């Protein structure tokens, strides 16, 4: 790749006996909004702290703008971190907090004032510049933390769970704001989060991590539509699954004979390269691709499973429910509320679940 901002090469980090980061290599392009998504303990925070310089890799190297960061302390790195707790200096005003990094770099006073003003305009905090952080709301504190990093125009802005401390409504508003600001300043953003919706909404590309390893890297739609493994399928979005044996595999098409649900005929699926007839596999399909029809019916063109409605909840914009299709298999289903507020199917009612063969993704068993 031509315009690399960050190049991580086979990074390894151990915390005691556990391998927190296990040979991670990632390339991040300049100006990209890149997220590291994963459950807690996935190693994403370790990775971020290694980028910032607070932790030293046990092996591997990090290049930022082509320069190796080995042995470079945090205060000499062209990166700035937006801390999860914001870490705003409580004894300084908003403007003083934002000016801190520039003062440390010994920029001329006039330049500092100009850049602080411009950045406060960008995050719309000009009127709060003389407040101390304790007197600000959560969202405002978040913006100060962001401004404090942006003002230095670093090669990379690192964000550690940037929206985790905000409540749901503010979180969505800040999400949009963050994206807009990133587009305006054009800096590389690297964001750590365990919140998958947030990661999908914000990122140009993201890496899903688990147990120190990168499970998949790609654009949000790649990860959601074409997960490469069950972990990604389950962690990014909701995964409705049946497992079984593949048969009749031919030219990327095949049939899955389920082992955990009873079905009159096999499920037709597209089969990725590498899976042969006789292989154990799991088919996963997203809830919004599953149609729910009352009664046990069949449709020639679609895959179909029969089940019984266990729960059905009204959440305003839609109905969400669970349908039992086998002794140990339950699928999540969604029904649009576009038509009326009436309950689409009753609890305990027999239903048919139907979906296009091309909407199912077949993955090897973990």
């Amino acid at each position, binding site marked *: 790749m031509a315009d690399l901002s960050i190049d991580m090469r086979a990074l390894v980090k151990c915390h005691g006996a556990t391998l927190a980061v296990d040979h991670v290599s990632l390339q991040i392009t300049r100006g990209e909004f890149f997220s590291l998504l994963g459950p807690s303990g996935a190693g994403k925070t370790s990775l971020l702290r290694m980028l910032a310089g*607070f932790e030293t890799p046990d092996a591997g190297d990090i290049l930022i703008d082509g320069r190796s960061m080995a042995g470079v302390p945090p*205060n000499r790195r062209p990166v*700035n*971190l937006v801390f999860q707790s914001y870490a705003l*200096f*409580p*004894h300084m005003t908003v403007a003083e907090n934002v000016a801190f990094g520039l003062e*440390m*770099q010994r920029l001329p006073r006039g330049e500092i004032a100009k850049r602080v003003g411009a950045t406060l305009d960008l995050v719309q905090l000009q009127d709060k510049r003389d407040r101390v952080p304790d007197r600000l709301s959560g969202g405002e504190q978040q913006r100060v933390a962001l401004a404090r990093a942006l003002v*230095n125009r670093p090669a990379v802005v690192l964000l550690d769970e940037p929206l985790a401390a905000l409540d749901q409504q503010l979180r969505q508003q800040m999400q949009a704001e963050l994206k807009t600001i990133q587009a305006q300043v054009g800096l590389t953003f690297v964001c750590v989060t365990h919140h998958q919706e947030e990661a999908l909404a914000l990122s140009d590309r993201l890496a899903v991590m688990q147990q120190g390893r990168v499970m998949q890297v790609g654009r949000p739609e790649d990860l959601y539509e074409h997960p490469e493994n069950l972990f990604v399928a389950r962690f990014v979005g909701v995964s409705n699954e049946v497992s079984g044996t593949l048969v009749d595999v031919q030219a990327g098409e095949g049939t899955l004979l389920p082992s955990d649900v009873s079905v009159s005929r096999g499920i037709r699926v597209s089969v990725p390269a590498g899976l042969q007839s006789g292989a154990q596999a799991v088919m996963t399909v997203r809830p919004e691709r599953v149609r729910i029809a009352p009664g046990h019916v069949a449709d020639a063109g679609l895959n179909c499973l029969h089940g019984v409605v266990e729960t059905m909840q009204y959440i305003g914009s839609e109905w969400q429910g669970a349908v039992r299709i086998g002794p140990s298999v339950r699928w999540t289903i969604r029904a649009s509320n576009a038509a009326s507020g009436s309950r689409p199917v009753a609890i305990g009612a027999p239903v048919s679940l139907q979906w296009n063969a091309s909407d199912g993704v077949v993955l090897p068993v973990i």
Partner: protein
Amino acid sequence: MNHSPPSIASSPSGRSCSKSSGLLLPGLLWTTVFCLLPIAVVLAVSLATRGTYGGVLWEFSLDNYRDLLHPLYGRIFGQSLLLAGAATGLCLVLGFPLAYYIARLPPRRQALWLVLIMIPFWTNFLVRTYAWMFILRTEGLLNTVLIQLHLISAPLDLLYSNQAVLLGLVYGYLPFMVLPLYAAIERIDPALIEAAWDLYADRWSLFRRVLIPLTKPGIVAGCVLVFIPSLGAYLTPDLLGGARSMMVGNLIQHEYLVARDWPLGSALSIVLMLIVMSSLLWYFAAQPPQARERGEP
């Protein structure tokens, strides 16, 4: 806070008030009789006159305070302030890194180090001062060792000097500095230190721009806690100091028990107390407002 109408609130709060005063009274009385009253007596005597044979004549006069302006007393006060100030400064310089180091240890080791800091603090002060006499005197351990190592040929005069007094004060009161500093540093969110570092601060800027402002209440507390007992020190200058190392505490003792000039000794005590109280005001002014208002309902 829940503001209930006074008519309802009056009876239970009135009862709890009388109950609390019943519990408080004996202790309060004791402190009043054996601390406040004695101070009042000292104040009264400081305004009286010395009798011919050492007693107190109850004639009002400010002469005792006027006498304090004598250069001899001024010198001793000045020397006391200087020694106490130097001891405070040295304790701060030594105590800050020590407190910082402890505050950054893993919790279990923190507890161990804190206990180690506290043990000397509760160990007999007289004995600890004596230990330095044993080490520093002409035939003491340090001279013996240095002579045996052929580093010096004749013993050094280490004991009975201002330096020895300073050493004794720092030694005696270092824990008073470390403990509040530790408490203040330990409270700092480690992310703040990382943030400063991430924002290009070097070690000195981190210290000056972040650590010092954030630990100011602890620094002031530590300084006051070292300065007050250092200023009023009696044993340290008495045992480690030379003829010229007298401090206010020794002067007061001298006026009372040797010269038997009680009014003058009392005036000295009152001035010492006023200095102590003013340094306490500084302490209260430096504490964060929440802590100060905590006692309010």
